[in-house]
């Protein structure tokens, strides 16, 4: 992701699709084409629109996709992008049936494509390009890589880092759904190999075991970069979905406290409240391990 990214916007003619295409273009993102079935031959926000991804690629050159299509069509839109060899495929769409996401993620895995999301704010290479719906102005270039399960909370934390003078390299949402293409472990691997990133910030929440898995990975691989984290949902009761499809404590599994403990035990700097994150990073300048 960066200056070399040229994206297709699937669902470009919808409200969200056209609105955010404009904002992505404003941020400097290269948008090669849009795709909306039945709207081929038109343009949206100045971008040429095609009926299918394959026909778009006959006329333009792209290597990534961002998807805004409604949930019932998102699985096939993702497959279409993957069949065309696009990667990453950023799926903004929320409320996709879990079974559809499960199958799509397996489809991507077996074909070597990276899916970001679903139900993600997207990904931003700060100062270069964004494939997503995040407000560009809360970020500033720097060396912190940030991955999150939520949208607005990411902007909140990015803004507070920016405010304290801590810039970011790449920020992305892994998505708020039970099944996501990239998880925290995948993202940690990417940041490990990214020379532009010194520190990784993980913003987790209740439900599932993505944070525990990340903690295990950090511990087991003696992760070479500094990691800090915040986990939302300490005040959430069990058995209730807190907005995100994936944010639910089932039985005694997936509590914020358990996640925070796992991360701390793995040497991660864990903030009690979001505003503590920049303070932790400013205090602890050098990598932990």
């Amino acid at each position, binding site marked *: 992701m960066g200056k070399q990214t040229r994206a297709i916007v699937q669902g470009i003619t919808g409200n969200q699709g056209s*609105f955010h295409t404009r904002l992505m273009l404003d941020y400097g993102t290269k948008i090669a084409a849009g795709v909306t079935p039945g709207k081929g031959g038109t343009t949206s926000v100045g971008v040429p629109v095609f009926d299918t991804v394959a026909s778009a690629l006959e006329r333009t050159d792209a290597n990534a996709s961002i998807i805004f299509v409604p949930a019932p069509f998102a699985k096939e839109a993702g497959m279409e992008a993957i069949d065309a060899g696009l990667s990453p495929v950023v799926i903004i769409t929320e*409320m996709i049936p879990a*079974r559809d996401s*499960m199958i799509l993620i397996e489809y991507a895995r077996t074909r070597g494509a990276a899916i970001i999301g679903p139900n993600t704010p997207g990904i931003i290479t700060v100062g270069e390009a964004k494939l997503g719906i995040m407000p560009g102005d809360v970020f500033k270039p720097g060396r912190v890589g940030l991955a999150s399960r939520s949208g607005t909370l*990411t902007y909140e934390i990015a803004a507070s880092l920016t405010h304290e003078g801590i810039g970011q390299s790449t920020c992305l949402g892994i998505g708020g759904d039970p099944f996501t293409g990239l998880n925290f472990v995948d993202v940690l691997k990417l940041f490990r190999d990214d020379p532009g990133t010194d520190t990784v910030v993980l913003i987790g929440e209740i439900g599932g075991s993505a944070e525990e898995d990340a903690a295990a990975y950090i511990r087991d691989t003696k992760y070479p970069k500094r990691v800090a984290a915040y986990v*939302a*949902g300490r005040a959430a009761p069990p058995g209730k979905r*807190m907005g*995100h499809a994936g944010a639910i404590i089932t039985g005694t599994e997936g509590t914020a406290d358990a996640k925070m403990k796992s991360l701390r035990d793995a040497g991660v700097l864990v903030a009690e409240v979001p505003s503590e994150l920049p303070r932790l990073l400013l205090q602890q300048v050098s990598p932990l391990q």
Partner: protein
Amino acid sequence: MKLFEYEAKSIAQNLGINTPKGAIASTSEEARDIHKRIGGEAVIKAQVLVAGRGKAGGIKFASKPDETRDRANEILSMTIKGEKVKKVLVEQKASAKKELFASIVLDRANRCQTVLASDQGGIDIEDVARQTPEKVLRHRLDPVFGMRSYDARLIALKLGYEGIQQSTFSDFLSNLYRLSVIYDAELVESNPVIESKDGRFVAADLRVIVDDNSLFRHPEFQERSKEISGEVTALESKARDNGLAFVELDGDIGIIGNGAGLVMATLDLVKQYGGKPANFCDVGGGANAEHVATALQLIQGAEKVRAVFVNILAGITRCDEVAKGIVDVKKVMGLKKPLVIRMVGTNQEEGRRILKSAGLTAMDKMDEAARLAVSKVGA
């Protein structure tokens, strides 16, 4: 969406899954008649969506129809964890050779469905999993190809079944799996599965949770999901009908925010500073004035709420829209509870101007705002 036990069993029967002989009753007389018809000893089970009905006395046994009527009468007058019992399921009590546990869950870490099974059924499976994890068998299913007969057979084998019983149990599992696919179930769980003396496997209890996001392709459940509110409180139901992600909590500080993560963090902050949130309320991305107004009206209208904290980080959402919504409520019905607003981001200046014109102000930092909100209820 949780299905009632009787709904889940009705679906299961159509897929060839054995369930105990029985029927659903809304009155104690109906319950008695069902017992007469099915004979034997009966079990009368409260049909509620909350968990833990057994411990709450919502499951009773009776050996005679008149006794069933009395027990049904008792259960039908109960409220279990806030949920009024409206129906009871009357079933023939099965005589078990063995009780097992079987469920098919979404396995988030492995991005697939996973079968959990155990020959220690009928009791709390989480206790079993904690105390004797080796007693709970986990078998992952291929995300695309699902449960093949050899998956089911291997599970049956590991539970100790041979020959014909191996086939019978693997057929039972295959049918549970089919149910999970056909109905987009995020959970199918039978506990206990009863192995009867004549070798049949019977889903004595059955829990099914349908993926809410799949309801667009299950028209049969769309109406039902609106009708039955047992799972949610009246306030939750009202809020959700208005397109808000809403969870009622037992505190006194009403919370409104945009974005699930931010709202969760807001609850955490309030709690951190000694306050108790009254709810989780996410107005979502790009909420307009009307949305915000609805949320504020609902929350300040709740009796237990003693202060309201609005926390907005505007990205797609615009501060001017949020401000308009708040000011509208103030104008139309007045602000009934102390209000703390934190509002930053897109169109911040315009938003604050609108607030100011109505005599309201917004803060910059969520920490400070949370602390102020907590102080409003005197904590």
